[in-house]
């Protein structure tokens, strides 16, 4: 990070004052992971009034480290997500909101590189003052699930509201990342398949709001009818997350992103979903779910790092994979028992960040 001489604490203070450059630097730190990311996350958590584990109360935040309305947006490639986000966030600015967008695109599995093209469709939104950050998945296991919530919190800290996370709705992780939001918007288009296809796709189950984009196409009415049929079935069996109080029938908004048709309705629908959740007392539960998922992601990473560093160099050249793993797992267990997995940075280098766990105090 050349040219940046400020400490993390100074960057956090500047980001709270809505400085865009400091916000961008913090996003970079969180994305890269490791101890600096942990420090940013902890400072952002306290700044947003996140409760300590002892249960102290919050100010401005909700106790789970959130102020902003977090909206996940996903859908198949080519559905018009970026174009829709551009039109929708521009309208949100006109309504007095300060939206930020985290646009996630896949990295090449072969080279680790990526072409992040969302800004091409978002010139209008940038001009309106929308903060847009492009992000590549960077391939590492669980990395996306780990980095995105931290980056959302940085944007929240900088005063952006709503914070929109846009992912391509292909792949479990991408859908999961978008679906742990306060409101989940799924963008579909005419011609994506009949009602049976719609039922098959797990993507559709996570939606709180549907946008049928490109609805100036002749078969738009069919697409809408297919969605309604699918939702009729869900009326019988229950919508989405039973027991969270948000199991109401999702709304369907017809949009044409390129001309702005339906964009006002979309802004109304996402607002209404938030309001309804608050009224039903369901928002806190949903955010607790998200908090739990975030803890799980961090734990997965610690365990993964510990097991990778435990088996490093001891992988045999052949053998039945399951049996090899079982015999190696003893080494992992020894590693976990003999070495403390650091819960705080003062305990030493986190296991596996630079290979090799630190000597523990057990």
């Amino acid at each position: 990070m050349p040219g940046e001489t400020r400490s993390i604490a100074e960057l956090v203070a500047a980001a709270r004052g809505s400085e865009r450059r400091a916000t961008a630097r913090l996003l970079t730190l969180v994305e890269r992971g490791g101890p600096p990311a942990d420090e940013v996350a902890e400072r952002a958590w306290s700044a947003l009034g996140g409760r300590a584990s002892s249960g102290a109360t919050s100010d401005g935040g909700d106790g789970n480290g959130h102020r902003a309305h977090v909206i996940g947006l996903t859908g198949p490639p080519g559905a018009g997500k970026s174009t829709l986000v551009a039109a929708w966030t521009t309208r949100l600015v006109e309504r007095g909101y300060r939206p930020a967008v985290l646009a996630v695109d896949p990295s090449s599995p072969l080279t680790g590189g990526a072409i992040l093209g969302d800004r091409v469709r978002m010139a209008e939104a940038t001009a309106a003052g929308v903060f847009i950050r492009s992000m590549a998945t960077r391939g590492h296991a669980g990395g996306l699930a780990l980095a995105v919530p931290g980056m959302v919190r940085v944007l929240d800290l900088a005063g952006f509201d709503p914070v929109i996370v846009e992912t391509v709705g292909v792949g479990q992780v991408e859908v999961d990342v978008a679906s742990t939001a306060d409101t989940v918007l799924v963008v579909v288009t005419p011609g994506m398949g009949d009602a049976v296809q719609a039922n098959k796709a797990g993507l559709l189950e996570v939606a709180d709001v549907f946008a049928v984009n490109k609805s100036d196409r002749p078969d738009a009415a069919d697409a809408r009818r297919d969605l309604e049929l699918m939702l009729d079935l869900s009326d019988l069996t229950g919508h989405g997350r039973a027991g969270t109080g948000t199991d109401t029938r999702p709304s369907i908004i017809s949009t044409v992103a390129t001309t702005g048709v339906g964009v006002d309705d979309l802004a109304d629908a996402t607002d209404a979903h938030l309001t309804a959740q608050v009224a039903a007392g369901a928002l806190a539960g949903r955010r607790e779910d998200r908090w739990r998922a975030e803890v799980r992601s961090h734990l997965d990473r610690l365990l993964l790092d510990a097991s990778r560093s435990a088996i490093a160099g001891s992988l045999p050249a052949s053998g039945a994979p399951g049996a090899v793993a079982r015999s190696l797992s003893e080494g992992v267990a020894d590693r976990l028992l003999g070495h403390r997995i650091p819960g705080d940075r003062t305990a030493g280098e986190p296991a596996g960040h630079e290979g090799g766990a630190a000597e523990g105090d057990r």
Partner: protein
Amino acid sequence: MNETPLRVVLAKLGLDGHDRGLKVVARMLRDGGMEVVYLGLRQTTDTIIDAVEQEDADVVGISMLNAGHLTLGPRMVEALADAGLDVPVVIGGIVPDEDRPAMAAAGVAGVLGPGASADEVVACVRAAADTRS
């Protein structure tokens, strides 16, 4: 996590509708393991600066096929400096050899002409990134 990919903003600056070269370069840089934030056609120094700032980019690459490099190249370098962004600029496209000293004098970190190989493109962007203080 071990080696963070370089982040490169690629744009066509000004009125110049030929973006095939830029698309080829985007692909070369991706295949070289970099993250390319692609802005595409008809960008201004302001829109590029917005992108560089929000994306925390390491290098700016602009493509010039309209002979505007002598005017717009230095202007881009100047605009970034005025914004307090220490981010090097690489220009690709049609830059006559006799203009290269002027480009270097204006602070352009690298110039890539027609026929540059993928390896040369990647090496030039990497070298530009390494010039940062």
